[in-house]
């Protein structure tokens, strides 16, 4: 009995310590945090995202040149990489994930900024768009992947790939060479040509390549691009979305599940 109490006490202390540490690393929102975030932004982010955060930094143009993507305009634009429904702003966690993981091909991972610095930058980014004060982005329910795919996971996924016309943009074999992509019809929010993601190359997935990432991309869509949200189509049958995820993973030679 005594030992049990001690164990609980120990767990409580450790949990409490972790909680306070996590809390301590995330600075309180406020003027000081934003100012510090601005200072970091001016050293690390300004080159692509620009002095005013409009995505027009001195190096911004060369990234996409005459095609998408350009660096994010923090003052008005939508965010592609979110856990929130289409049209909503991202959560702070979403912004933290993007800064930490980077965007393959286009933005480096800034995990070299410590956690506190990343939160400070996020506070500054949010201060650039007044919409963050008016809206409260709420993440969608994004469950963990099931431990095992259903028996016909990949087959079902292939059927959904056809049913949801993923091939239109991503191509029959997922190589990003669907008819709309090949014809150059796809455009981003600035009417810049954009190509569909090559689903056979997970290292190029902007929103991440884990099953959870794929599920999130399918459900939320990538705002500012032609990739729509499928959450409403999967409503009530979310488990089917995992079959599509397994199929997408099978295209890339990643371990199927």
């Amino acid at each position, binding site marked *: 009995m005594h030992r049990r109490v001690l164990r609980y006490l120990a767990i409580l202390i450790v949990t409490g310590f972790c909680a306070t540490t996590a809390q301590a690393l995330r600075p309180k929102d406020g003027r000081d945090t934003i100012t510090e975030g601005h200072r970091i932004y001016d050293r690390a982010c300004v080159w692509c995202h620009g002095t005013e955060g409009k995505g027009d930094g001195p190096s911004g143009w060369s990234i996409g040149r005459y095609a998408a993507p350009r660096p994010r305009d923090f003052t008005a634009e939508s965010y592609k990489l979110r856990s929130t429904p*289409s049209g909503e702003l991202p959560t702070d966690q979403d912004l933290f994930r993007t800064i930490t993981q980077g965007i393959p091909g286009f933005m480096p991972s800034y995990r070299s900024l410590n956690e506190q610095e990343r939160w400070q930058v996020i506070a500054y980014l949010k201060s650039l768009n007044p919409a963050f004060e008016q809206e409260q982005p709420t993440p969608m329910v994004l469950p963990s992947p099931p431990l095992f795919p259903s028996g016909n996971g990949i087959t079902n996924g292939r059927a959904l790939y056809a049913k*949801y016309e993923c091939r*239109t943009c991503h191509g029959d074999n997922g190589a990003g060479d669907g008819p*709309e992509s090949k014809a150059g*019809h796809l455009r981003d929010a600035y009417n810049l040509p954009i190509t569909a993601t090559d689903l056979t190359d997970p290292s190029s997935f902007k929103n991440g390549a884990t099953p959870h990432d794929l599920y999130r991309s399918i459900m939320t869509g990538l705002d500012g691009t032609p990739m729509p949200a*499928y959450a*409403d189509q999967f409503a009530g049958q979310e488990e089917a979305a995992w079959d599509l995820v397994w199929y997408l993973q099978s295209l890339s030679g990643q371990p199927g599940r």
Partner: protein
Amino acid sequence: MKPILLTVTLCVMLGPSALLRAESPMSTLVGRITYPGPIESGQVVAVTRDSSFCGTTTAIHTVTVNAKTRGLQGAVVSIDDNTVPAADFPRRPLVLTNTRCAFSPRIVAGEVGQQLEIRNDDPVMHNTHISMGPRTFVNVAMIPASRPVEKPLKQPGIYLVQCDAHKFMRATMVAFTHPFFSVTDDTGAFQIAQLTPGEHLVTVWHDTLGTFQQRVTIPARGEVTITIEYPAHVDANKK
């Protein structure tokens, strides 16, 4: 004593809107927007996808004028300076349907807070991509026979409605912070109710022809009928 208290309480509860509504005479503006310019036959574009259902070509009408009345269809008429507070919600959802590879209606107008309901009646997949400038309002996949997608309007302004899968599909959605607006029908007619008497500024907006404004005097009570001719010189970029 008691009845007075009750009246005061009632007044406070109902708020100034109820009082205004009870006291002010309300008028309705009925009118027609006409367009003196030539009637376009529409630009014919090739359909590259789902041609078995959508057809091989489609005509895009940017300016639709009724041959009989010269009425301009799809103009959005609004009065922003009406002092009557907006009616309470819920209003009926605003419906935007993907039908026969086109958006119907092509011009929708709604009020902030109102639900937009997106439907797909077609046997082919569409994606309804609505945005204002660089900000996406919603971009949802609409597979055949899917249930409607609903989303409340949040920001006033002019939204572009597109289908990325069918590039020729275009529509416009206009959101207001008040209910004093109307979209002209196929004869060019519109109607705006609940207007206070006096002079009002009527704003007419058309997605191709642009914006112009005109002052209108609304009499106390009743209905006033006007015909407004769209000036040919309106700058299309002044949206």
